[in-house]
């Protein structure tokens, strides 16, 4: 699968971030393995250390297996002012996991995130590539059930 993704991109260093995003997004366990990092580096003729350091620099990338759906809850002030702590509590209780943990069935990983740039919809969170706003206990409970139902 990796090869077919890589072949879409020109072999130019400035494609690195786009490639890393694409590769990670297409994996159910939402992370980049050492082997993948090496293969991407060799495709772009970059030292592996260069790619590894970019992977560790950007928050989106993980070198640890994660859940199929990564939940990022905004922790910054405008969301905090609109009770984001409560949102985190609700999710933790519903899923039985803490921050940076993954549910046993590999379905969800919970992470904090810096401001999502949608503070007019505070409190906000992102699941995969979808952003959800103006969340409260009921809405988040329904949302999690919906994601579970999709499987």
């Amino acid at each position, binding site marked *: 699968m990796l090869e077919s993704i890589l072949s879409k991109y020109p072999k130019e260093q*400035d494609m690195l971030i786009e490639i890393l995003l694409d590769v990670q997004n297409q994996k159910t366990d939402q992370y980049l393995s050492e082997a993948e990092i090496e293969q991407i580096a060799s495709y772009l003729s970059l030292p592996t250390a260069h790619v590894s350091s970019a992977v560790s620099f950007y928050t989106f990338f993980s070198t640890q297996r994660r859940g199929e759906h990564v939940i990022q809850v905004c922790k910054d002030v405008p969301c*905090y002012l609109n009770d984001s702590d409560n949102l985190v509590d609700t999710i933790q209780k519903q899923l039985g996991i803490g921050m940076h943990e993954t549910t046993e069935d590999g379905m969800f990983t919970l992470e904090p995130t810096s401001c999502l740039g949608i503070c007019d919809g505070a409190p906000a969170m992102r699941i995969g590539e979808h952003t959800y706003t103006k969340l409260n206990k009921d809405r988040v409970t329904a949302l999690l059930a919906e994601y579970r139902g999709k499987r």
Partner: protein
Amino acid sequence: MEQKLLTKHIPGMDPMNIQAYLDVEGYQSFFKAFKTQPLDIIGDIEKSKLRGRGGAAFPVHIKMMSMAKQKETTRYIICNADEGEPGNFKDRYLMENNPHQLLEGMLIAAYATRANKGYIYIRGEFDTPIKIMHEAIRQAKAHGLLGTNIQGSGFDFDLEIRSGAGSYVCGEEFALIESIEGKSGRTRVKPPFPTDVGLFGKPTLINNVETFSNLPWILAMGGEAFASIGTESSTGTKLVSVSGNVKHPGVYEVPFGVPIRDVIDTLGGGTQNAQKIGMVQLSGASGPIIPEYMLDLTIDFDRFEDFDSKTGAGAIIVMDDQKDMFNILKRISDFFEHESCGKCTPCREGNVHMSKLLNKFLQSDATEKDLMNLESLSRVMHQTSLCGLGQSAPTAVLSTLKYFRDTYFDRIEHPQEGGLA
């Protein structure tokens, strides 16, 4: 109180259909640019006195002129759509609702500075704006507004989107350039500036989404008419992101010179549940926190020079008086600690230390010595950090030390009363 230019056509306009933009005279300013000498376009922008909307408020024509003068013929223009500072969301609003206005502004800038290739760097969290901008580019190409020999003018311009991957510092112009080049987003020492040595070592003009979106309006109405809007030092309108404990959070467009209080009360609808306002943070996480009695200050770039802080990108974060100041400060400091790129010591170590000191206040465990340390640490970070991130990280602390000094002493002297919010 609102004055709508950039947001004028938004209500009811379909952002996914270029025709909707063409129907409101979209791209007419770009066609006008073709009939104008590039240097005259820059001259008109000089007359408009337009200043950058991404935070630093630098005069736009100076950067454009510097680009236009370069001997190197490979030149780039970049739109900074990284908008990552807590409390800011106006660039998202512009991209989601009027993507072609941004493209037209970039085309005008590219034509005036003779750049043939452009990038829009959009933060990775902006899934919807990324989709909309891709579609807008596709439609602009289909209409012969991008590509080679645009409208038979002999001018070529190609545009690509690059996505961020979760890093606030990549909004800083050199960090952004490094990121597009496929590296970690760490800034470079200036000078040279990007207009001399930028992307791939070539002259590069970088401006904010809102800055580019102003250019069609300046060409349409003329620089002088534009300069008559707003104030002497800050011309035109400002898109303000209002958030926090207000009834109607959102993006509002007002002329410069409007009092902050009016924006909060009239447009933001005042506080939720009619609480009193406790504090207001301006410009985002990197901006000053001011008390309620200062809200008659007007929105103007040069108001907060005390803290070397401009109005910034125009955020107003309203906090009601039930919120604990130290909880807010700790969150701000955690943000900068996480987002520091680690290149220089005052920022890398300073933010860690600042979080620890603030935590002592939060936990009611701070002494006067901690207060003194916090104050001197803030000064050092502000003065010696390499880029704007580290320089502005202590602004929230420095401003509260000025306007809410008693709150610090209260917490030291009456620890038991400083219950955790």
